């Protein structure tokens, strides 16, 4: 069994208020005996941690603050998400990374895989081998075996026993959460939408940092109810005639909010996110009858991401969302050096061209140097719709 970290980092006092609160909230949970698992990717099966009574938290760090530190080790022209994640790990500046007893990585891209090897020198790391096919029996078998291996690792590291009953209960609870988040973002199918895209993203992103499940679902339900009530009372935060945009591409949140901001400042509204913070992991429900581990494995493997080949599920979802949300244009955000998404952008463009939906690709990183150019591009795109 591993030794759980409960003391605060030495640089704690110099931290900003929000992060200080994050540290204190996390410390309280640790003091109450909770184990914490940090993860980076939507493919990570959270049900396994939930079934073990652990807290899980997304570590895909979304700020450029620690990138200079990371660049002492990692190449500068690497994806900012990888550099930021690693930087937060080695500087103890992220409460979630700092207090993670176990960090679960996955083989979604070469940069991440190699970064995890370096990270393993600092943290307790477990890597899931993710296949790149979603439809073959071999891929499905490999992925299920990987989840068995993860379950055994969690049981060993945290001294927990994970029964099928625990897993079934976790699937059920996660399904409730997925259904609620889907209900929330689907509010923006209304015309005009009841919330801006920035607000939607902030709620979706923020929900990842609520660690008490009961409180989390209550808060999401509350958000849905209050947004709906305000709308019914006649509140219209978005004018009826502005172009409706869907964002697709790399994971969003944190500083990448800048992309939503430039689009909405240009006079459009973002109604949907076909991203990992958004529809990608929330669109489908996990099967509840039958072997729970098989169900979890099947469920996660079907997420449509550019790391898959072929990536049919992404296009199916993208096409469906464009119709459901009645979008006037699609903006793809790719992070610098994210080859899988950057290359697939060509296919996304062709796919949308066939549907007659205007498309714009924006490449960016976690810095603010490109805001002027982003706003010119986004502005011109909105002007042409």
């Amino acid at each position, binding site marked *: 069994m591993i030794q759980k970290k409960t003391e605060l980092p030495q640089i704690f006092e110099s931290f900003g208020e929000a992060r200080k609160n994050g540290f204190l909230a996390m410390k309280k949970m640790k003091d109450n005996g909770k184990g914490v698992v940090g993860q980076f990717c939507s493919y990570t099966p959270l049900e396994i941690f939930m079934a073990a009574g652990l807290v899980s938290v997304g570590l895909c760090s979304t700020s450029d603050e620690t990138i200079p530190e990371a660049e002492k080790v990692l190449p500068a022209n690497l994806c900012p998400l990888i550099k930021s994640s690693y930087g937060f790990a080695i500087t103890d500046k992220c409460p979630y990374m700092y207090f993670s007893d176990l960090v679960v990585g996955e083989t979604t891209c070469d940069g991440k895989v190699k970064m995890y090897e370096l990270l393993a020198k600092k943290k307790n790391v477990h890597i899931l081998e993710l296949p790149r096919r979603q439809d073959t029996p071999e891929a499905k078998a490999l992925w299920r075996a990987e989840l068995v291996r993860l379950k055994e690792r969690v049981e060993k590291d945290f001294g927990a026993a994970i029964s099928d009953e625990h897993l079934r209960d976790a699937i059920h609870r996660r399904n409730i959460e997925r259904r609620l988040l889907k209900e929330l973002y689907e509010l923006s199918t209304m015309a005009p939408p009841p919330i801006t895209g920035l607000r939607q993203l902030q709620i979706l992103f923020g929900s990842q940092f609520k660690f008490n499940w009961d409180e989390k679902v209550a808060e999401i339900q509350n958000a849905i109810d209050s947004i709906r009530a305000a709308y019914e009372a006649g509140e219209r935060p978005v004018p009826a005639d502005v172009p409706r945009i869907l964002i697709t591409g790399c994971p969003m949140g944190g500083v990448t909010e800048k992309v939503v901001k430039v689009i909405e400042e240009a006079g459009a509204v973002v109604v949907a996110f076909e991203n990992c913070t958004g529809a990608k992991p929330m669109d489908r429900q996990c099967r509840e009858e039958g072997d729970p581990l098989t169900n979890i494995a099947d469920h996660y493997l079907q997420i449509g991401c550019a790391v898959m080949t072929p990536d049919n599920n992404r296009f199916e979802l993208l096409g469906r969302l464009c119709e459901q949300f009645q979008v006037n244009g699609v903006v793809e955000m790719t992070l610098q050096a994210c080859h899988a998404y950057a290359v697939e952008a060509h296919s996304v463009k062709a796919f949308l061209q066939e549907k007659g939906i*205007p498309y714009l690709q924006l*490449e960016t990183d976690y810095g603010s*140097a*490109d805001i*002027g*150019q982003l706003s*010119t*591009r986004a*502005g*011109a795109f909105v*002007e*042409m719709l």
Partner: protein
Amino acid sequence: MIKASVGIDCGSASCKGVLLQEDAVLASCVQSTGWSPRETSRAVLEQLLAKTGLARENVHIVATGYGRVSIDFAQRAVTEITCHGLGADYLLPGVRTVIDIGGQDSKVIAVEAGQVRSFQMNNKCAAGTGRFLEMSANRMGIDLAEFASLLPEGKSCSLSSMCAVFADSEIISLLAAGKSREEVAGGIIQLVVDRAVALAARVESSPPILLTGGLAGMEGLRIALERQLGQPVAASDLSRFAGAIGAARTYWMRKARK
């Protein structure tokens, strides 16, 4: 009462202004942007008003270019991409592709009846921009006009570096190795053209093609572009004002729609 519209295209290198009455350009003016886009834009506006004798309250002002956000006296701001589309259609009615090589950006815009259909811009990098040419000319100890005069020779040499900083040291090496200024200038223009052609390929450009932006008057550049694209590339005396004309036109287009 509004009698005319003023378009101010405040770019990173120069600030262009035109005063437009319906379809007639009554005055134009260009000034180096300098350190204050707002003050330079104000000076450009004053000159346009002085040239036409119109009062401030008789004009509607539309700003574009990177400095558009700081022009607080404009009634509206529109991106330079939309403006170049509209301006190019004014200069060459029926234009389908606009190649704009500006101070810090180069763009290729596909248009139909002045409306932008799609566009491509260089990333945050000076390769292939006016700034790149200016730096290269400086390195050769000449100004842009002299640089342009070296091009009609049609001489060229191969430069491999797309990066403005690396190209700078490559230019030094080539000159040191005895290449003529004509050859080096030709090589530099080829880099700019290659970059523009790569952008054009991504917007599936079609003729007629118009070259706009501050470098549109550089005949050697236009000819090199034609050669590489295998299609005629037009330029107009007012090409550098395309963005400003487009900005001024947005007023009349909106008015016509109402």
